[in-house]
């Protein structure tokens, strides 16, 4: 890798560093370090003057490694790497030393100690720099085709958005029709718009666009590959199909929880779930008589502790419909507390009360009781405010159950190497910063597959996921982290430790020509965390840019490198 000639550039950062650390002294010290061929200080190394000087000195002194001792790599590393690149030096032959955040700013009253520490830090940086090697970021072509798993609101929105952008889309739906849960609904809040219209609008786009290939009654059998080049095996009514896609959007939605064993559902006539109610409404039933809705059926309790979020709004909506269908009927909603978030739902809540729907609070310690022999007669409940039991006559009891994750989510999460949360919903890379992405590149999530979402949320998440998925497909290639892991096949015993700890499935152990197990890293999938390198007892797996030798050299230059004997 050529001669090691290190150049050190120490920054005053105005007085931010220079006001505490005696920068010229640090530069003098740097000049005494082995393999340092040049050192200087700059008022602002990140200024044009500073960057120009770096480039000039690289040429003048034939520097092959550059160390900048200034602020934090988190803000300035890219800038200095770029400067090295402009001077014809590989961008990874640059090492950053943090003298500001990690030294001058935190030892402002101790110039001597801060200066001594700055020398240590520079020495450690130079020690590592001397061992840096040029790296090339891996590039991978991205097939401009996307797979959308799930034909519900989120999936339809995602597929529609992608097709509008001119990408081929495979839309996979295991049911025999599109629309998902929404398709079975009556009317939607806000605005009482018939669900059929919304589904129709969403569906129309994908069915009419030539870009979306719809696979009904189809399921995912197997997924291999990585961003840009996934291979997907599809089970369709007419046999298996192999798809090659660049990105994958998971929009598998959720299911309405079946309240088995709760409130005598499937035991008494007249006890039904919200979805069952809406299907009846769609089918045209108009007579219900007195109705009691029981919220939080099967949610916010041990075993399923989460709040379904939407169910309150659904109960509010349907309670009002029943009241409107039969103004004389007594419609009561038993609730633990009403989560009618946002202006619209708050409005709907008021609207329902004005329509004459009664809301009665019950406590989880005293659950309501459905009374009746063959069919529902009444619901007995402890009225929290009156502090006594009351009995509410009813012909219909509607159970408001939360959305729950699909049992099959587990298989899909294994195939895609993406995680699930404790409730079996898909877990995104970061709930705030990367809400529709998985940690695994090229795989995205939208809608109720992540967490109970209403149609608005499902659609916007679908469009967001589509946008995220479109980015690499527009670029046509992905450039991935260069500080990835790498295996030395001669040193590797094939024990599989690296494979076991890799969160991304980037490391695999397979037999070589001689039949010996050997690990290898897929640089495109690897995110450069280094967990595998730390798991390898022998050091056969190395993380480029953070090799065993580089780190140990820093440790030793701290332990042994001082002027005075330790």
């Amino acid at each position, binding site marked *: 890798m050529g001669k090691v000639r290190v150049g050190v550039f120490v920054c005053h950062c105005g007085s931010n560093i220079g006001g505490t650390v005696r920068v010229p002294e640090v530069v003098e010290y740097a000049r005494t370090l082995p393999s340092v061929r040049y050192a200087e200080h700059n008022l602002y190394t990140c200024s044009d003057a500073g960057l120009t000087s770096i480039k000039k000195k690289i040429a003048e002194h034939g520097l092959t490694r550059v160390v900048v001792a200034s602020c934090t790599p988190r803000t300035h590393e890219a800038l200095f790497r770029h400067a090295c690149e402009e001077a014809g030096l590989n961008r990874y032959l640059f090492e950053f030393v943090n003298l500001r955040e990690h030294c001058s700013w935190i030892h402002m009253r101790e110039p001597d100690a801060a200066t001594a520490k700055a020398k240590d830090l520079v020495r450690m940086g130079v020690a590592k720099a001397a061992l840096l090697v040029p790296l090339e970021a891996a590039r991978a072509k991205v097939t401009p085709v996307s797979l959308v798993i799930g034909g519900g609101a989120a999936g339809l929105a995602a597929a529609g958005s992608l097709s509008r952008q001119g990408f081929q889309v495979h839309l996979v739906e295991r049911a025999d029709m599109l629309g998902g849960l929404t398709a079975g609904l009556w009317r939607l809040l806000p605005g009482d718009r018939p669900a059929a219209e919304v589904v129709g609008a969403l569906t129309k786009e994908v069915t009419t666009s030539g870009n979306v290939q719809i696979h009904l009654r189809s399921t995912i059998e197997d997924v291999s590959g990585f961003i840009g080049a996934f291979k997907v095996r599809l089970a369709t009514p007419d046999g298996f199909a192999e798809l090659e896609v660049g990105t994958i959007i998971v929009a598998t939605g959720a299911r309405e929880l079946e309240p088995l064993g709760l409130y005598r559902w499937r035991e008494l006539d007249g006890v039904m779930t919200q979805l069952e109610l809406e299907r009846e409404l769609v089918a045209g039933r108009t007579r219900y008589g007195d109705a009691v809705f029981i919220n939080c059926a099967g949610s916010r309790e041990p075993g399923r502790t989460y709040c379904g979020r939407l169910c309150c709004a659904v109960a509010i909506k349907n309670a009002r419909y029943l009241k409107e269908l039969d103004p004389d009927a007594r419609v009561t909603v038993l609730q633990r507390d009403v989560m009618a978030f946002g202006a619209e739902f708050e409005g709907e809540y008021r609207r329902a009360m004005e329509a004459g729907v009664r809301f009665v609070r019950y406590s989880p310690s005293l659950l309501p009781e459905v009374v009746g022999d063959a069919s529902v007669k009444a619901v007995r409940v402890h009225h929290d405010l009156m502090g006594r039991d009351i009995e509410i006559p009813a012909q219909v009891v509607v159970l408001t159950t939360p959305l729950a994750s699909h049992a099959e989510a587990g298989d899909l999460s294994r195939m895609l190497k993406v995680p699930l949360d404790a409730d079996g919903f898909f877990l995104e890379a970061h709930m705030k910063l990367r809400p529709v992405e998985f940690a695994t590149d090229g795989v995205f999530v939208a809608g109720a597959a992540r967490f109970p979402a209403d149609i608005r949320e499902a659609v916007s998440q679908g469009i967001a996921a589509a946008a995220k998925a479109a980015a690499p497909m527009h670029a046509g290639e992905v450039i991935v982290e260069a500080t990835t892991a790498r295996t030395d096949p*001669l*040193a*590797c*015993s*094939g*024990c*599989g*430790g690296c494979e*076991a*700890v890799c969160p991304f499935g980037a490391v695999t*152990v397979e037999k070589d020509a*001689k*039949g*010996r*197990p050997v690990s290898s890293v897929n640089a495109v999938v690897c995110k450069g965390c280094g967990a595998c390198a730390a*798991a390898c*007892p*022998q*050091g*056969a797996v190395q993380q480029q840019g953070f090799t*065993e*030798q580089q780190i*140990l*050299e820093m440790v030793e230059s701290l332990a042994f490198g001082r002027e005075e004997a330790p």
Partner: protein
Amino acid sequence: MERRLREIARELLARPGTLCFLGWEALPNGRGTRPVEIRGADRADLLVWNRTCHANLAAYLPRFRGSQGSVGIAVKGCDARALSELVRARQIERERLFVVGVPCAGLAGPDGASLALRCHGCRYPEGFVYDATLGPMVAPDLPPRPVEDPNIDAMTPDERRRWFEEELGRCIRCDACRKACYGCFCPECVFEASRPRWISRRDTVAEKLFYHAVRAYHLAGRCVGCDECGRACPAGVRLDVLNRALARHVEELFAFAGAGVIEGAVPPLLAFTPDDPEPYPGGEP
């Protein structure tokens, strides 16, 4: 039992495609046994089994990495644990092995009569699948391990450190311990590598401490307590004290059954659960 062992080996070696049978043979001086690799059915009668069969034959298996043909091997409980961990670590294919379980009621100590220290409280690998056994492979009724000598648990940290510095200080850096260890199958040991040079050749306590500490860590959750390292050590360093202590800690920390006890089980250091013990500040949920 010995006869049955020979019969099994003979029958196996007669089969086409059998490479060899790993067992124990009597020492020339008749006092004790040593490992033997039998090739050819006619030599099966060399095989013996008795209380002096200390050698953990699993240590020889990684040599067959990348070769063809099946290998017969006699294993005691501890050896079986080593074997199943080697299979888990892909150092040998289970299909290639014909594993003969030897019901061991505890090996002889140095004096020939007593029970070897390491055998006290020995447990057989639960759920290990043998291809044949010389008798029922049941947990022998062995006395629990006597109060450790030295009893490092009873020492203050400072006493412990001094004890280990003195004990490991006896090490002569011959590396026999790792070469005798079934679990040290790296093509090139990290201590032999020169980039980086993890360890100095210098004869200092710190280097010895580093060497043995790293070895213990590498074997955490993989050490089966066969104490072959101790047997190989010419300086009589009590390596078992460190290995045993760490094995115990790992088993307690992660409710781990023990290295190789459950076939295919991943060693604790290659796995995790979100609800592992959390002693570190900032980790409270």
